């Protein structure tokens, strides 16, 4: 077990290293750099200042050296400076992290609750009209562009209630109700999408388990149906569901980009897009790495959780 964990962590580190090279090179392939952008607002440019800024930001050095410098800084825990806002990158990123984290957790929660619930219901009533309706409904969620879903929610709210969630971040201490209202709609938009896959996996693994002998026995012994389903069957269907949650995570971050934009939430996902468009390398690089680490950690924990829940899986070299 321990050997396995060490092995997994080591490969994860290799992956992260590769990721850092990839994102570093890709970002520098994007034409134009921040110095260009800052000095492009048109006008008489002070060439000395331009050179000076490039030097200050280290953009005049060879790419390989820039890369090494970045890693050094990362190792020191220094996220560098946001070129765009002229402040330490951490200062801009820090308040945004909890926003995205909260949204992501809430969305996963909604996806799981919605997905598992409809999945179980569908499986229990296999081939009924309800089963079909729920399956179609969850597939519909997968078929809509997420920005579109968000836009529709906002348009609906404003024309139906003359109200939309706050456009400025409200901290929970300030006003808990407003805070929750601000998060629940975007989380619904993201979570609905996420629920589709979970629903389908839940349904099919439930069907498998429901066919097993011991469930039939339990039913035959006259135990009431729903306790059986939720007690026995769901416990056994939990494994594939956890796998899917891990798988969904990386996918969901992408969905957050547009949802944060539409609901005007100041999260890191939306900020990452801005950073890319502004060639704000330190912020873009570090955020991508952060997401990479999060994805790797989630996948790793899903793997370990899987093994813990199902002793049949043996940890061997992969």
């Amino acid at each position, binding site marked *: 077990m321990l050997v396995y964990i060490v092995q997994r962590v080591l490969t994860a580190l290799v992956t992260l290293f590769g990721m850092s090279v990839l994102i570093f090179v890709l970002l520098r392939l994007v034409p134009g750099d921040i110095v260009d952008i800052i000095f492009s607002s048109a*006008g*008489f*440019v*002070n060439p000395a*200042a331009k050179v000076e800024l490039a030097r200050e930001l280290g953009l005049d050095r060879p790419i390989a050296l820039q890369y090494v410098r970045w890693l050094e800084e990362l190792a020191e825990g220094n996220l560098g400076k946001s070129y765009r806002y002229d402040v330490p990158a951490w200062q801009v990123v820090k308040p945004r992290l909890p926003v995205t984290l909260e949204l992501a957790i809430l969305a996963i929660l909604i996806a799981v609750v919605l997905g598992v619930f409809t999945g179980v219901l569908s499986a229990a009533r296999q081939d009924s009209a309800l089963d079909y309706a729920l399956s179609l409904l969850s597939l519909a969620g997968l078929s809509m562009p997420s920005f579109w879903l968000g836009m529709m929610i906002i348009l609906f709210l404003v024309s139906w209630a*003359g109200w939309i969630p706050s456009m400025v971040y409200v901290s929970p201490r300030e006003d808990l109700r407003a805070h929750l209202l601000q998060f629940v709609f975007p989380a619904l938009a993201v979570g609905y999408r996420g629920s589709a896959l979970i629903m389908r996996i839940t349904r099919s693994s439930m069907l498998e388990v429901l066919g097993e002998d011991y469930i039939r026995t339990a039913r035959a012994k006259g135990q009431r149906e729903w306790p059986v389903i939720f007690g026995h069957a769901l416990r056994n269907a939990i494994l594939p569901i956890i796998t899917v949650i891990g798988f969904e995570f990386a996918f969901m971050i992408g969905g957050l980009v547009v949802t944060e934009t*539409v609901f005007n939430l100041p999260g890191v996902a939306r900020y990452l897009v*801005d950073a890319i*468009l502004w060639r704000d390398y330190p912020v873009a690089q570090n955020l991508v790495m952060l997401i990479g680490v999060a994805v790797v950690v989630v996948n790793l924990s899903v793997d370990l959780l899987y093994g813990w829940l199902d002793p049949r899986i043996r940890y061997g070299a992969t």
Partner: protein
Amino acid sequence: MRKRFHRLVFCAFCSILIATTASAAQAPKHGGILNATLIEAPPSFSIHEEVTISTVWPMMPCYNNLVIFDPLKKQESLETIIPELAEKWTLQDGGKSLVFFLRKDVKWHDGQPFTSKDVKHTFDTVREAPGITAKLRVNPRQLWYENVESIDASTPDAVVFRLKRPESSLLLMLASGYSPIYPAHIPVSELRSKCVGTGPFKLKEYRQGELIEMVKNPDYFIKGRPYLDGIRYTIIKDRSTRYAALQAGRQDIPFIWEVARMPAEAAKRAVPKLVMIESSTNVNDHILVNLTKPLFKDPKLRLAITLAVDRQGYVQAGRQGAAILGGVMLPRPYGAWGLPEAEQKKIPGFGDPVKQKADAKKLLAELGYGPSKPLKIAVSTRAIPIYVDIAGYIMDQFRQVGIQSTLEQVETGVWHAKMTRREFDVAVSATGIGPDDPDANLYENFKCGSPRNYSAYCSDEVDRMIEQQSQTLERDKRLKLVNEIDKRLQLDGARMMLGWSKEYVAMWPYVKNVVPHQSIYNYGRMQEVWLDK
């Protein structure tokens, strides 16, 4: 919901009140926070280094000018200029010295006293006077002050602008939102991420990319101003969300440069009590042709390009009717210097579209282009919906005369850099001009060598005419000259004008004293704005 209901009852009450007291002007109320809107984070806070309303609009409340256009008067002109940091001003030496007498009771937000040194520092920096150490990173409006010989600040409460020759435009440019006075005791570079001004509001908090919060300056030199306790500029990037926020009452006023008529009208239809004000913006849409490329050096080809585009169609399709046709200067009645309509109609491109398209085809055929060998060009534009739409329209117009074009969408960030380096064939673009003034426009956009003269147009004769009109103090004579220049620039294809966009500001009726001017750059001070709540 409940809040909305209260507001409704309250407004009903107000209207009764108004009805009974006839139209007696209401006394302004103090207090309240104005919820204002931005569409993007300002590139920086330093007005003197930026060319975008995204910086000017939220930063104007922090600063003061020497003089300013009266915020309550819609039409800006020499006559509507009122004192700000300067109590009064006079022209001396036969118009070659402009003397400002400054207020003595003004303090910077950090408590330092304001003196004539600050004025000298500001404009010496902008015009890059010899020997000045403070340097702007980017200096877009240096040419505005080309005629300034020196600035004399030998007494703390007066400042003298000594001119090379008489000029009537200088005062107008000093009254623009683009001409705030910077503190001499703070390095220019620090003003990119904070603001230290003398203005009615102080910067309270900047949540990068999210919110700019301004708070009332209790020591403001005009007693009883500002009325508001503060202003919150919320950055909302998505357009439909922005309008939803306005309709839902989350925002009190929209971003003033929304220009879109449709959503403003839709908002008004949904919430009938919204007030909608139509105004010009002093921003023009045009086609730029890169004159450094050999292909476009041929005037015949340029003529064909401009003839291809139906201008009335641009107004209808590109701007949903929210634009007016005009030349290089803002047309009348919004502007004071525009080419008379009859003259403008004679400019190629503004005539009968069917006949013009036939002419364009004929010209192209004469140049050897035709169905078997079509003219192929790349059209560049900013990756902003409105530009992409207009470009889509223009490209179809080109296609109708047999010009094949492909679109290059350029991200806003790299757009100006590409334009300045002339990395384009043909571009669909827009330019905003601070005050409605020939000097403010012509020097920056059309003089040989100006970095913002993107098409690289250069004519010694036109340059001479620009100098000449600037020195002409008699208005009628100057107008004639300006019209002459306007025609010349259009005929030469320096910029193929399409038209001037209009804006539709929809706001809540309790917002008082936000009066859109004919230019968007000059009325953001917010000193007189109050909330009737």
